[in-house]
């Protein structure tokens, strides 16, 4: 049994919150640069150029890529041979978010109650925490700050088996077209297929963590990712919804077994700043 102190987790989370918000990951940056070359619309190319410049300014001057530094979504894979000491895990995670958002001059965007009070908690907590227990004695932490311009454009639909591939394709293109300019395209589209209602949504979010230059390991789903990207780029939405051929930088699909009677599909849209940072402790 290996022991890890809770304060080590707090420090790691704090650093990841800052890193994810300041430094656009290389796969997304490269896709913006490549998209600028491929985009057919002149205005679209100008916008993609702004986004490349923006990522460079943020990196060089250590400032957030986007002012919406998101709600902190934390994925933790905890080895079953790890014992956490010196504090409770969830409190350690939230303490990391408090520290990271303060020290990094990140915007605090969380309100305490969704409907009635809506008072800013002032420190961007609570985080959304997804835990899984895995073999081994390591802890892997991934942080994906999620802005709500794009989160608000996401959707879940309980398709039935007869909908098939065509049903999934239509749902994705309809969702992207309806979202239009709102989620800050060029977007990254996470698609979760299978499981149950909530599992599909989780898979869609998890899909956004995979680098966009790396396809699903299953060749059928890898092919679906390619086809979906091509379709999404035919919607005409384009950079910032002002028209063009680069509507998405990537489409990532994750799947899970499901019930004989169903085919849940969830689409989690991310903006061009698909932020994530990870560490293994």
């Amino acid at each position: 049994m290996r022991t890890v102190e809770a304060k080590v987790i707090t420090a790691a989370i704090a650093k990841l919150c800052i890193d994810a918000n300041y430094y656009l990951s290389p796969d997304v940056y490269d896709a913006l640069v490549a998209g600028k070359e491929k985009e057919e619309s002149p205005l679209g190319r100008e916008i993609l150029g702004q986004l490349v410049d923006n990522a460079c300014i943020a990196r060089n001057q250590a400032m957030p890529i986007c002012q919406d530094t998101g709600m902190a979504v934390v994925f933790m894979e905890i080895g079953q041979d790890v014992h956490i000491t010196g504090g409770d895990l969830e409190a350690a995670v939230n303490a990391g978010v408090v520290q990271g958002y303060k020290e990094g001059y990140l915007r605090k965007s969380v309100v305490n109650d969704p409907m009635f009070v809506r008072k800013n908690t002032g420190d961007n907590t609570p985080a959304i925490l997804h835990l899984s227990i895995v073999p081994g004695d390591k802890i892997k932490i991934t942080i994906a700050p999620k802005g709500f311009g794009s989160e608000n454009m996401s959707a879940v639909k309980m398709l039935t088996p007869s909908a098939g591939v065509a049903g999934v394709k239509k749902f994705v293109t309809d969702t992207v077209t309806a979202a239009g300019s709102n989620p800050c395209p060029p977007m990254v589209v996470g698609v979760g297929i299978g499981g149950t209602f909530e599992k599909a949504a989780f898979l869609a979010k998890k899909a956004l963590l995979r680098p966009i230059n790396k396809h699903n390991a299953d060749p059928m789903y890898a092919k679906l990712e390619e086809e979906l990207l091509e379709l999404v780029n035919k919607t005409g939405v384009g950079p910032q919804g002002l028209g063009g051929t680069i509507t998405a930088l990537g489409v990532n699909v994750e799947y899970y077994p499901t019930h004989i009677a169903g085919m849940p599909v969830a689409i989690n849209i991310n903006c061009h700043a698909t932020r994530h940072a990870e560490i293994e402790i």
Partner: protein
Amino acid sequence: MSQKRITTPLTEETARSLKAGDSVLITGVIYTGRDAAHKRMVETLDKGEALPVDMRDQIIYYVGPAPAKPGQPIGSAGPTTSGRMDAYTPKMLAQGLRGMIGKGYRSAEVVEAMKKYGCVYLAATGGAAALIAKTIKKYEVMAYEDLGTEAIAKLTVEDFPAIVVIDSQGNNFYEEGQKPYRRL
């Protein structure tokens, strides 16, 4: 597509001269205000009271900036989704508000009010928040300080980049711009 330089306050004449698809650089003073500030402003108007800032011929920027680091006027400051302000916007336009900067679609009611009063809706590049922050020289809170990032502030900007999306005739560049590239 042409690029125009505009200064604030924005007169009705200038607003009416801008066309959907124009690229503009804005210099002067613009005001911030987003969800909670709009809710409060419209509640104030509904009570028959005056707004804390005179919006006549002004431009409002839907933004909730990141906190400024020491020595900076403002942190990253890109646009937020404008549609969330739609319920409040016609009342703001009736107060003389001349322009809005945000991102994303607007409702039919907003477009009708824009045509009626001669206003313009501009989009700033969503997410280009570090780049946009460089054009903001000064940030002064004017009202609703308790709202934090959602407070109403006066920004002094130089060559703030934006694109006219909906003009005072109701032409919508989100629709017009996408058409030539739609291949589904």
